[in-house]
């Protein structure tokens, strides 16, 4: 597809089924080059973790979990095992939402099912990876996470392609349920290729006192990503934070945002977005809906233009339905201040070094409540991207 066509919605029928992919039987079949690629998105075979999951194209090739209170299964197996899963299946994301959810409902490849039993709080992250290994396939994934009452899960999910794959299509339906006083920290690092199209479709429901923290990172080349996770805070005191750290290289079209519906008193939401365009187009959307009194919601979009070629568009929206709400947004788009570059140059950095340090600092957004291990992975991804700027 030429650059002009990037905004055109990719069609599922233009790609081969992921079921026809060259799928390995186990992780041992992955080459050192593939492992290097996985490491770039934070897949650390040696790092301490509570569970691991890897799906290549349409098949789950690795699935392992450690603690008692954690269930980790391919979603196709979970569907066979648990009848009650029907209560969660297509309940946070409607199957009829669009052509991609429909396609996934009709012909699912696989996905992960994670359930954290009541009261289980895990120290280390669970790591999942959705990997496109074969050129020109469409990977259709459906994930379910259930964090039961008083439980806690830190998930790092990495999505990437085989180093030799230039073209492909990833559809990821994700439905997350955070029960009373539960906490889910979801960190997603993407590293795609020039002709990869990505359509995540995420729905989250957070009950009373629950917390959902999402961080999305994409810093490398991609054709287009369009994603607008939707989160409902249905119980009093529920909280949600969405952070995104985005670089749009030349040729990329990124339409990213989040929608949070605050439906109970005392709920809080925050959307923080940092985007850098080095020639690509980045749309930073945020939509906060105050459907209950005494809610607090804030939206912050900041963009940095490093080139005159691309575009950054900040599109914030606030809807209030009660008088007693506290909702705000701030947005700023601009270039790097010359003063900052000169300051660093006076300390001995070249103009290029100064620019890349400032960009790294700009992307270095601290999400409150994000575990140190996950922050470390994000920092690594940003440091890696800085080398390529």
């Amino acid at each position: 597809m030429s650059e002009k066509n990037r905004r055109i919605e990719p069609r599922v029928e233009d790609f081969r089924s992921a079921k026809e992919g060259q799928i390995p039987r186990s992780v041992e079949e992955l080459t050192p080059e593939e492992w290097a690629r996985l490491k770039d998105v934070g897949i650390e075979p040696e790092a301490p973790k509570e569970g691991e999951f890897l799906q290549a194209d349409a098949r789950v090739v690795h699935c392992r979990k450690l603690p008692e209170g954690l269930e980790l299964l391919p979603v196709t197996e979970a569907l066979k095992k648990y009848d009650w899963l029907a209560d969660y299946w297509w309940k946070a994301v409607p199957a009829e939402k669009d052509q991609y959810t429909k396609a996934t409902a009709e012909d699912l490849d696989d996905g992960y099912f994670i359930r954290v039993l009541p009261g289980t709080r895990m120290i280390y992250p669970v790591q999942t990876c959705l990997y496109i290994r074969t050129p020109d396939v469409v990977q259709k994934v459906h994930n379910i996470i259930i964090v039961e009452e008083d439980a806690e899960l830190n998930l790092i999910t990495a999505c990437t392609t085989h180093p030799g794959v230039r073209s492909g299509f990833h559809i990821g339906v994700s439905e997350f349920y955070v029960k009373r006083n539960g906490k889910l920290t979801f960190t997603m690092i993407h590293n795609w290729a020039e002709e990869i199209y990505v359509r995540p479709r995420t729905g989250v429901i957070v009950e009373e006192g629950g917390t959902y923290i999402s961080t999305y990172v994409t810093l490398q080349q991609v054709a287009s990503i369009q994603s607008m996770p939707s989160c409902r805070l249905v119980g009093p005191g529920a909280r949600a934070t969405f952070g995104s750290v985005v670089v749009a290289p030349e040729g990329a079209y990124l339409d990213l945002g989040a929608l949070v519906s605050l439906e109970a008193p005392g709920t809080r939401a925050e959307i923080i977005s940092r985007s850098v365009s080095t020639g690509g187009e980045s749309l930073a959307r945020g939509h906060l809906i105050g459907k209950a009194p005494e809610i607090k919601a804030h939206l912050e979009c900041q963009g940095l233009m490093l080139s005159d070629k691309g575009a950054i568009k900040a599109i914030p929206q606030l809807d209030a339905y009660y008088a007693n709400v506290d909702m705000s947004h701030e947005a700023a788009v601009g270039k790097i201040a010359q003063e900052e570059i000169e300051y660093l140059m006076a300390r001995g950095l070249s103009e290029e070094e100064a620019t890349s340090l400032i960009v790294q600092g700009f992307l270095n957004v601290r999400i409150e409540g994000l575990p140190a291990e996950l922050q470390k992975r994000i920092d690594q991804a940003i440091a890696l991207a800085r080398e390529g700027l």
Partner: protein
Amino acid sequence: MGKEALLEVKDLWVEVEGKEVLKGVSLTIPKGETHALFGRNGSGKTTLLMTIMGFPAYKVRHGQIIFKGEDITHLPPYERAKRGIGIMFQRPPTIRGVKLREMLKLCAKENGIKIEKLAREFGFESFLERDVNRGFSGGELKKSELLQLLIQDPELVLLDEPESGVDMENLQVIGKMIRRLLQKDIHRPRTKSGLIITHTGFILQFVPADLGYVMIDGTIYCQGNPQEIFEGIQKHGYEECISCLRRIEE
């Protein structure tokens, strides 16, 4: 004579945003000496420092800047920094998302200076994990600047009003840091040199200067004993300097 010149500024004419600010400035700073620069606001003092550092907004129309015998008039700031020139900014910008510790590491390159130890010595270690200059008070900005310079370890230090916006308590610490920077506490021969802009002259109580200059309207009108010049300005103001020099000219 006999003292090796570290910096020589020769008949420097500089334009800023189309306006002529420096009109034929010449001065020489020998190795190991500290010189003080007095003058009203807008007289061109900061312009001189920024030009010596090489910021692109300061356009040299005529003249030369020689550092350690090399003509650096047209080198970019980072090349000058590498050769041993450092500057303390009066109003440094915030570098968001970059920790002071990280910045100090970049200043140090690989000179082996211990960041932790220096920061602790000047009571600044709790700032290492903060974003560079973000939310710093006047005194904290000065300490941050001086800590960066101590780690950068330049041979020539350019200080733009190091005492402005600093309370008496912090002035002591800042004085101590500048003394360290300019080797005021060690026996001669010193190798570090400085050029200090000062309005209040307070800093000279902590950091004695070897020579003082008065700059008026982009030109250095007189030079001499810094303490005497400063006392003269305090008593009679800059008007007296002008008339004094006019008398000399007549």
